[in-house]
């Protein structure tokens, strides 16, 4: 044994079906704390589904996922796995923060209200304290002057930065990013990636589903290429992105770059 800490996320032989379509077909992946893991692949490859399984927005059909050593979604009772209650699943979700492709800010709340909603309603923290922390987070994503703006009054890039702040306000151990820049106008991608880069530098464990190969090459320690519900290739970015071993990976990367 080396002095390496135990992995913070372990997925073992995860399968997920949507009716007859196999979205995930025995996906195994383990992620160390503080690491930035990028997942790339064509649309329909199961990469977003995998991410959504990690925070139980989707339920897995087979295999197991451990987060911080804890089995998610089920509890072992004798020889059976018993599904957890709504409240227990909600508690488990606190370990992960999620950033969505379409931002999904709460439309009826201002930027500040979006950020303090979780801390105040879910964690029952004093409002004043939550606001102070939310203002720090807004400063961190460079949107202090947007505190009272509704989502509709902000650009896509601004909304996504507020969404990142909203997820961080829950103090998650792991941040999940589901194609965070895919719905943005090209000139707004940079501001979101800058916030994510900053977050990676701070030592946050991040799992990022993305098409931004430049970001992956620069920030990720490990890149996974998925296709048809399976992990095809995995390794450091210098290998997977610059010198891919598999034909399907090569095809995908050249298609994205052109």
């Amino acid at each position, binding site marked *: 044994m080396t002095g390496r800490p135990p992995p913070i996320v372990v997925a073992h032989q995860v399968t997920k079906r949507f009716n007859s379509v196999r979205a995930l077909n025995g996906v195994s992946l383990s992620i160390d704390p503080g690491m930035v893991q990028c997942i790339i692949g064509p649309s329909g490859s199961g990469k977003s589904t995998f991410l959504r399984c990690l*925070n*139980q*927005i989707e339920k897995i059909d087979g295999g197991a996922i451990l987060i911080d050593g804890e089995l998610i979604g089920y509890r072992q009772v004798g020889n059976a796995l018993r599904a957890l209650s*709504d*409240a227990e699943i*909600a*508690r488990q*979700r*606190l370990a*992960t*923060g*999620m950033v*969505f492709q*379409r931002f*999904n*800010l*709460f*439309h*009826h*709340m*201002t930027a500040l209200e979006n950020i303090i*909603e*979780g801390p105040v*309603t*879910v*964690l029952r923290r004093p409002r004043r304290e939550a606001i102070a922390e939310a203002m720090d987070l807004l400063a961190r994503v460079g949107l202090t*002057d*947007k*505190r*009272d*703006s*509704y*989502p*509709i*009054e902000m650009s896509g890039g601004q909304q996504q930065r507020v*969404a990142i702040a*909203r*997820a961080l306000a*829950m103090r998650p151990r792991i941040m999940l990013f589901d194609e965070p820049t895919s719905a943005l106008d090209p000139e707004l991608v940079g501001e979101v990636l800058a916030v994510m880069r900053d977050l990676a530098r701070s030592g946050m464990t991040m799992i990022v589903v993305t098409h931004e190969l430049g970001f992956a090459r620069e920030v990720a320690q490990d890149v996974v290429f998925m296709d048809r519900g399976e992990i095809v290739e995995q390794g450091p970015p210098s290998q997977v992105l610059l010198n891919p071993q598999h034909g399907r990976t090569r095809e995908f990367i050249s298609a994205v770059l052109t």
Partner: protein
Amino acid sequence: MTGQPAARPVSAELERLVGLSIVPRRHYGRWVAAAIILLLFAWVVKAFAEGQIAWKVVGQFLTAPAILNGLVNTVIMTACAMALGIVLGVLFAIMYMSPNPVLRGSALFYIWFFRGTPLLLQLLLWFNLALVFPRIGIPGLIEFRTIDVITPFVATLLGLGMNQGAYTAEVVRSGILSVEVGQTEAAKSIGMTRLTTLRRIILPQAMRVIIPPVGNEFISMVKLTSIASVIQYSEILRNAQTIYYANARVIELLIVAAIWYLAVVTLLQIGQFFLERYFSRGRGERRARHKASPGNGAGGQP
């Protein structure tokens, strides 16, 4: 541009056109229509002023104790029946969308029955409940004579409220469906339970869709309370009738009732306006106002 050189020779002509004054188009048709409507209106006003209506009697009974008492009963019944209807509506809308077939089935049955039978019939059923169950209560624990429990007030409340609930359930359901799935997913991702998500995220956004039809039904309810007169609930119309049976001032008392109905409905409409504005926050309609208002922190638009 090819147009430039061609335009040059007519520049003197253009100069002359620019100097002319502009006369708006005359809408003769609209003027005629407006004149006809004004004439008809004047004729109706004159007819009513000269007709067999004792306006003094109208004024006299407008604030008669029996009328005001009926007005209070009408308002109380409207508020109670709508409150019951909305509570039942939300409950049954959620049951309708449950994956559990029993919950879903009972919601379907409720909506089917109470939407499918006439309100008047339902009122009479509730009022005559004693014919079916002479005594009600929890057997061996507490019991009442049905006839003591089901007063005209209770029968009307149950009849109007249960009926309203069936309609409101569908309105609430459409409101909930109008909120995107992404909102639920985001709520889950910050650790909200299903109930908290519904209360904090889904319902406040559904309200934007729910309020206009419910406002409409609120106004209907004010007037629907009048049918409770058949089971002796003393709302305003019944009290007006009681008075005109005695003094034969039929039209005068009907006008008194009409004036009060219009007054209540007008107040409700004003209330609806403010509610709609509140629940459309963050949805564009309020955007202009929000930006214009001075002193809110949103100042620095880039």
